[in-house]
């Protein structure tokens, strides 16, 4: 008679000696990556199934195997029995997918499943902030992606802050690390400082390199993330599942950075436009009042003595000069960068040069000053305006230079 322990131990010995290195073929029906890095899967065929493990010690040495539910795989390993539970299982050292089509099929199946569940639905897409103050990035700290993102953001909008949540982006542990990084970003955002947008990605790579971004668990975690997300997986033709589930898809990490921040050159240009609009509006307001007042003065010309008219005219000039000076002072003290605008403003006041001894010459009846001597001829009558007063003269000679 055997004790339970003895039976299990004996059975284990028999199994291990009989099946020390065998290949099996089966369809993956269940599949989990444990945080420890071990891979647990169930392989099945039409009539039976078997539990499989691939331990981390094996997996860390190998490139990540693109495994997904539904894929047909070939596995090399041994059969053993886990004594404490009396459970019989297959310990794989190598797992190969059979045919590239299997992977594509699994991708399409997952895509369809998540689509039907509504994970890609536009109604779930969160809008990106207009200008993010704090940008979270989930990628490898040593990859090209973080360099590209940082370089684009520091060029376009250095006012933002970038925080990296490091994660490996390929290999067996990548999916768990990505999920842990999203967890960390979310907790950081809610407990320490809000994150306005989260970029998740990596540079380009082979289909196998991008596997982590096609994991169902990663997709569901991104979907559940309350921070707006941008997928930034560098690849040219294909999409990843992440692209569908993120709020916004960018084709590369650099493109993601361009998407989330405005360009300071554009903002500065719009600042100049706004400043010019303000200056123009103020100048117009002044000109309109000047016309209005002058019209009033003219109509009252017959009713009030000459002297009073002159006093009023002078006061009007003083008022306008005061306002202009204030505008120019505002321009000068506020911002030297807008000195070209104050230049524009100064030019728009034709009276100002007169204060410095310049004069304006008119042909009587015209309101446009003469700027070209050849438009005059000897014997023409001209009127010259000074800062104070005017003269009328006859042209003696025209000299064109």
């Amino acid at each position, binding site marked *: 008679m055997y004790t339970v322990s003895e039976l299990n131990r004996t059975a284990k010995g028999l199994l291990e000696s009989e099946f020390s290195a065998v290949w099996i073929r089966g369809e993956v029906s269940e599949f989990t990556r444990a945080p420890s890095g071990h891979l647990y899967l169930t392989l099945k065929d039409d009539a039976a199934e078997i539990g499989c493990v691939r331990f981390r010690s094996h997996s860390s040495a190998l490139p990540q195997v693109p495994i997904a539910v539904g894929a047909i795989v070939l596995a090399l390993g041994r059969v053993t029995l886990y004594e404490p539970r009396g459970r019989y299982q297959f310990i794989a050292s190598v797992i190969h997918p059979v045919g590239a089509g299997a992977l594509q099929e699994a991708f399409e199946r997952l895509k369809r499943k998540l689509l039907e569940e509504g994970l890609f639905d536009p109604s779930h897409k969160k809008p990106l902030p207009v200008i993010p103050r704090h940008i979270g990035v989930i990628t490898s700290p040593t990859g090209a992606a973080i360099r590209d993102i940082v370089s684009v953001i520091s060029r376009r909008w250095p006012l933002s802050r970038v925080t990296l949540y490091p994660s490996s982006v390929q290999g067996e542990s990548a999916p768990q690390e990505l999920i842990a990084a999203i967890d960390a970003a979310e907790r950081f955002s809610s407990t320490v400082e809000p994150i306005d947008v989260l970029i998740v990605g990596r540079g380009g790579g082979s289909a196998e390199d991008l596997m982590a971004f096609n994991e169902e668990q990663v997709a569901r975690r991104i979907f559940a993330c309350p921070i707006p997300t941008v997928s930034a997986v560098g690849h040219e033709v294909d999409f990843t599942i992440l692209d569908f589930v993120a709020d916004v898809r960018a084709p590369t990490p650099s493109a993601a950075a361009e998407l989330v921040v405005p360009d300071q050159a554009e903002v500065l240009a719009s600042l100049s436009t706004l400043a010019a609009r303000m200056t123009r*509006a103020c100048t117009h307001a002044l000109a309109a009042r000047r016309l209005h007042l002058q019209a009033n003065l003219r109509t009252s010309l017959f009713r009030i003595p000459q002297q009073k008219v002159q006093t009023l005219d002078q006061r009007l000039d003083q008022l306008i000069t005061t306002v202009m000076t204030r505008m120019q002072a505002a321009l000068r003290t506020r911002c030297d960068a807008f000195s070209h605008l104050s230049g524009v403003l100064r030019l728009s006041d034709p009276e100002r040069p007169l204060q410095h001894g310049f004069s304006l010459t008119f042909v009587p009846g015209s309101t446009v000053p003469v700027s070209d001597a050849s438009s005059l001829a000897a014997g023409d009558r001209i009127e010259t305006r000074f800062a104070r007063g005017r003269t009328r003269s006859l042209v003696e000679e025209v000299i064109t230079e």
Partner: protein
Amino acid sequence: MNIDESLEKLQDIATRLEQKDIPLDRAIALFEEGLSLAATIKEALEQAKLRMETVVEKTKGTFSLDAFDLS
């Protein structure tokens, strides 16, 4: 006030200045305010240097921030 609010405010000031019957004193005050806003935004942008950090979660809920050096 953050930058997007400042930009929006500036936009609003320019629009108000363009209204026909705005009192002159009000116009000048708005003009000064607008220029001051524009200068602030410009200065902030010119002085800005991107701040980068790496976050590592220590135990649940506590974080350590390290300056992130790309070189």
